[in-house]
């Protein structure tokens, strides 16, 4: 299906193609373009230009007809995405609506997506932590997955590289379980959190309570000002898009930077059907694109292809890229493509009250919580479950609907509700889950979307390890909150389906052995080395950390390897 118009071929030929413009695709584009690589970035959704396309960024609560709540109709039409905490009146334009992009749930799975330039980097929660050596060593040590083909030392320089550009706020805490990064000033804890920190750490010598680390410019450096980004104003309205570019997104940062080089071509509204594999040349040669609106098919050619469509979408593209050489999906000799999908366990939460501290309040809206790095099974396997969980908590004073005594109407009632209430504490888990062959995605045999691409079937569920880990978190949460001086401690299991964590990973896992993995240590497909997969799909295990900064570091590292290989003529 070649284009015999040679000018047309030239117009559609690039050095590199990046599938996806989200948090990892934007990084691939930036690195490639900076090194003179003519790069085509394909984004299936619409363009969203920084500042110009943030319609709600400066609105006040009363500017929203429903004061930022969803209507019944919106909930009924979107049973999946309406479960997401950030899918509200102020940011719903950046989320995929259920009906627009159907998928098949073999087991309940809430697949939350953002199909636009910038992807979920517009709406992400911006929390960032480096993996530690224990996270990379875990699978090899405990045998619950194949060994990672890399170690922390391999990624450390790349964490530094991306952190400097992104702008990460945090404290140098000196912890083995959560390595320090290149940090801008950290956010503060409030008085209750500080008290809890001291009491928890006094009681548990192997547990650490630290301020959260996040992708916010608390004090921009020259590199950030060069990007046109400014200081975070503590509005905590990030999912709308930021007037100050103060949190990291592709839209405010990597994409404009790549565009400045003159080497970027950004094509929104481009649905990738498949990667083209040339059976004679034994390499991938390009990408088949269906225009989102006209449905016209165009082939784009390149020497190197980066797959950054988001974890499950990357699986979909690769599964749909069939050829004589690869009848079961690109690079899928071992049949493991789409398997070993995992996620993070968010089911457990606790709430409590804290007496006292009534002479203190906070100013501004901090965009991060307090956190505790994982303290389970760190140095050896010792619990009745594998791996562990990160803990996040925050303390706050009651708002305008807090319970007040006395008459529930009238002047005194109103006066009481205009004052902050007493302190409350809420705590959540971010648990590592074990990748399993049976947790997988695959293409529907008979159902297709409006572009003729098979729907994705998602067959992912919890296991006994998740239940035990959850139970331990809730028990430990009660104990720690109690020791911290909290009262009225309640526990909750949301019983939410996997997916609502929005940290699904895997399906195209990295590994040393091409029989048991899809990608090598440079994120190249073992069987098709000019195709790189560097978004969540590449993850061999899930860790307890928020994954995005790791995706960015892996992407920058892989892109620089691709650049070297291109320069050497190896790709």
């Amino acid at each position: 299906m070649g284009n015999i118009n040679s000018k047309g071929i030239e117009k559609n030929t690039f050095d590199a193609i990046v599938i996806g413009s989200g948090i990892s695709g934007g990084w691939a584009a930036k690195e490639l373009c900076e090194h003179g690589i003519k790069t085509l970035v394909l984004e299936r959704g619409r363009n969203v230009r920084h500042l110009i396309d943030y319609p709600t960024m400066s609105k006040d609560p009363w500017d929203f007809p429903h004061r930022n709540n969803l209507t019944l109709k919106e909930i009924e039409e979107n049973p999946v995405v309406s479960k997401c905490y950030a899918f509200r009146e102020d940011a719903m334009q950046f989320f995929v609506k259920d009906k627009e992009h159907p998928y098949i749930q073999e087991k309940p799975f809430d697949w939350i997506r953002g199909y636009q330039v910038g992807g979920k980097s517009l709406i992400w929660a911006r929390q960032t932590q480096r993996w530690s050596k224990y996270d990379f060593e875990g699978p090899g040590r405990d045998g619950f997955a194949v060994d990672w083909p890399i170690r922390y030392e391999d990624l450390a320089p790349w964490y530094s590289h991306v952190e400097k550009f992104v702008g990460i706020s945090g404290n140098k805490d000196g912890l083995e379980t959560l390595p320090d990064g290149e940090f801008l000033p950290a956010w503060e804890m409030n008085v209750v959190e500080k008290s809890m920190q001291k009491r928890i750490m006094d009681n548990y010598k192997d547990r650490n309570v630290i301020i959260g680390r996040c992708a916010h410019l608390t004090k921009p450096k020259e590199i950030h000002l060069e990007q046109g980004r400014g200081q975070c104003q503590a509005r905590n309205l990030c999912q709308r898009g930021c007037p100050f570019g103060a949190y990291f997104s592709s839209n405010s940062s990597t994409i404009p930077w790549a565009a400045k080089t003159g080497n970027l071509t950004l094509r929104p509204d481009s649905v990738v059907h498949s990667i083209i594999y040339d059976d004679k040349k034994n390499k991938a040669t390009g990408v088949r694109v269906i225009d989102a609106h006209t449905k016209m098919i165009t082939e784009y050619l390149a020497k190197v292809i980066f797959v950054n469509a988001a974890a499950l979408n990357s699986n979909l593209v690769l599964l749909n890229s069939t050829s004589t050489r690869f009848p079961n999906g690109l690079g899928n000799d071992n049949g493991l493509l789409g398997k070993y999908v995992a996620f993070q366990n968010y089911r457990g939460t606790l709430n409590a009250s804290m007496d006292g501290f009534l002479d203190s309040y906070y100013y501004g809206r901090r965009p991060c919580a307090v956190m505790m790095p994982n303290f389970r099974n760190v140095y050896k396997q010792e619990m009745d479950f594998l791996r562990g969980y990160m803990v996040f908590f925050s303390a706050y004073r009651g708002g305008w609907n807090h319970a007040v005594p006395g008459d529930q109407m009238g002047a005194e009632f109103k006066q009481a509700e205009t004052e902050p209430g007493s302190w409350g504490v809420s705590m959540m888990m971010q648990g590592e889950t074990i990748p399993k062959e049976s947790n997988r995605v695959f293409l529907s045999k008979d159902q297709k979307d409006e572009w003729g691409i098979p729907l994705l079937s998602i067959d992912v569920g919890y296991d006994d390890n998740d239940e035990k880990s959850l139970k331990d978190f809730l028990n430990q949460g009660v104990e720690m909150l109690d020791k911290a001086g909290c009262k009225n401690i309640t526990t909750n299991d949301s019983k939410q389906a996997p997916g609502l964590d929005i940290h699904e990973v895997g399906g195209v896992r990295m590994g040393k052995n091409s029989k048991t993995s899809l990608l090598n240590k440079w994120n190249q497909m073992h069987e098709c080395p000019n195709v790189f997969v560097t978004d969540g799909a590449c993850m061999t295990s899930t860790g307890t950390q928020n994954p995005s900064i790791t995706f960015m570091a892996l992407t920058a590292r892989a892109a620089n390897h691709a650049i070297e290989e291109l320069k050497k003529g190896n790709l």
Partner: protein
Amino acid sequence: MAIILPATIVSTEFLFSSCKSDVKEEYFTDEIIKLLDEIGETIIPATSTSPGAKAARIGAFMKIYVTDCYTPEQQIIFWNGIDKIKELSKNKFPQLALSQKMAILHVLEDESVEYAKNKKSNTGGNGDAVQTGKGNSDKMNNSNPHFYPMIKELTLFGFFTSQPGATQALRYIQTPGSYQGNVPYKKGDKAWAT
């Protein structure tokens, strides 16, 4: 499920004989909106320090929110409560003295306290049929199964997210500029609106 209405009903506008309600925006006539303003103002009155629910146009807000965001079951509870207020006030709620208005709302509040007591001792009950709006803000909890807590919550919500409510009764700063973890607080200082 039939809803038993009181024998003497002043208005025949709202005869709900089944759970399948077809409540529409048109039910919010000017008269009803005025009534809702008065109910709201009774719960959250203007004081020397800040305006009340009327200044926040609470009736107009309730029209939008109840129509768009309440489930049919919640709307039935809402309208039955409004009906009761109209009945107890002989359709003259706006004209009553403040103490009389409060007395009427207290009747409904007392009913809700009884209701809550009975609900605790029952294993099932109508309350379970009322669904909370999934995906709605945890700031706005629609799961109150009885009229008074519902109208109280709706008034608080509509008032404190309004411009007069947020900016005068509370402190509202769209762009704080910084985060400080410990600022002195003394009793009477207003809470942050967001």
